[in-house]
């Protein structure tokens, strides 16, 4: 905490000031607040800063300052006018060092970009299908994941999954899940077996008190059969012509019981059909009376942000759409 006059001369500081800046109170009092100046902010910043102080008597924001030992630190500060008798103006400043918070935030943003770069690009075969997915983390990173890839001639495997919770702790486990699912599907004879193995692995690898949901499918383009097994993602949507239906799948989550008793189901699809999968962060927001979702696989990534704009998100969200031609 700092009290200064209108000329920026320091009149009083508390112990937190000394702890953060390294300047003893006896040294700081009587000096200009410019002793903290870092040189990082440009002239425009200070012009706007002083304009705000003079016109409104108030300023708040983030600023880089320099300690007595020359090191830089970032702080959030708020300056208020101090009403005292007389004509002189005084300012009262509260601050909080946020150097580490800032570094962590930037690091999470980088992690989010790295995570996004691992997601597959849209996949399509002309006159057959187009599959695409989009996601948004509540923070920069996400605890959701998805993938799709060929596992045989005209057999497409795909999934969406959700490590419960959100933020960094969920995102850390997503990386392991991605590798786990890819390895498991290649080593399993059936979707049910794959989900059973995932369940066992999830119990071992997921952190204490954590679990996951997943929906895995194999699309057979010879028979046009969509085979799927769910673990806790209990609903998805199927559109066929003008028919739009919510399909519910009774199933439990991964990592909470030794025997998940996962069951494979199949849906016969027709050319022109659409399958729409979503994680619970999004599904929870869908009205029960939902009649259609006007999103297509082709433009999903462009339209997803606009689509999400109508909701107040409280979890990571992922949507996958497969359009059959």
């Amino acid at each position, binding site marked *: 905490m700092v009290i200064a006059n209108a000329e920026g001369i320091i009149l009083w500081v508390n112990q937190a000031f000394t702890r953060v800046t390294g300047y003893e109170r006896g040294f700081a009092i009587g000096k200009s607040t410019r002793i903290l100046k870092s040189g990082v902010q440009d002239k425009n910043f200070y012009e706007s800063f002083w304009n705000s102080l003079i016109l409104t008597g108030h300023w708040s924001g983030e600023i880089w300052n320099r300690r007595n030992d020359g090191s830089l630190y970032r702080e959030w500060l708020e300056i208020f006018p101090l009403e005292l008798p007389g004509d002189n103006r005084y300012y009262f400043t509260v601050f909080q060092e946020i150097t580490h918070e800032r570094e962590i935030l930037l690091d999470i943003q980088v992690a989010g970009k790295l995570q996004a770069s691992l997601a597959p690009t849209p996949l399509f075969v002309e006159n057959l299908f187009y599959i695409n997915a989009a996601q948004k983390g509540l923070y920069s990173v996400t605890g959701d994941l998805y993938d799709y890839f060929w596992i045989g001639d005209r057999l497409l495997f795909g999934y969406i999954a959700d490590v*419960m*919770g959100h933020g960094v702790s969920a995102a850390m486990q997503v990386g392991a899940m991605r590798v786990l699912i890819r390895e498991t599907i290649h080593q399993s004879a059936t979707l049910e077996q794959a989900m059973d193995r995932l369940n066992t692995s999830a119990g071992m690898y997921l952190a*204490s*008190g*954590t*679990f996951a949901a997943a929906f895995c499918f194999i699309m057979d383009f010879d028979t046009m059969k969509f085979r799927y097994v769910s673990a*806790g993602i*209990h609903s998805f949507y199927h559109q066929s012509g003008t028919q739009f239906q919510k399909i*519910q799948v*009774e*199933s*439990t*989550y991964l*990592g*909470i*019981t030794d025997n998940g*008793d996962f069951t494979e189901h199949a849906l016969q699809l027709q050319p022109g059909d659409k399958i729409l999968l979503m994680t*619970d*962060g999004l*599904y*929870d927001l869908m009205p029960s009376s939902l009649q259609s979702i006007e999103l297509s696989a082709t433009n999903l990534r462009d339209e997803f942000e606009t689509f999400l704009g109508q909701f107040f998100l*409280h*979890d990571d969200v992922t949507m996958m759409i497969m359009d059959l031609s």
Partner: protein
Amino acid sequence: MPVEIENHGDNIMVQLNGQMYVPDAAMLRERLMQLVEKGVRNVDVNMSRLDFIDSAGLGVLIGIHKRLIEHGGRMTLSGLRGSVKELFALTRLDKVFDIKE
């Protein structure tokens, strides 16, 4: 109050009321996790006055249940009804939790 917690030594009684959304779920998780860390091993959750729970709420119950099992404890649910009961059946959590009618 959507969430009421009564502490009886090693046993905790939780009453869930009305509609439980994310902020209540986050609060419930924090308070129950603290209690489990302090040695609570039995948690009874009364859901007879609960009309709605979303996946965040379910997530908290499963997370606490898992943590209790790891510590040799147990969670018992009672009074499930309506859409809450349906959701527990759909997610097969009615086979995971110890449920009293």
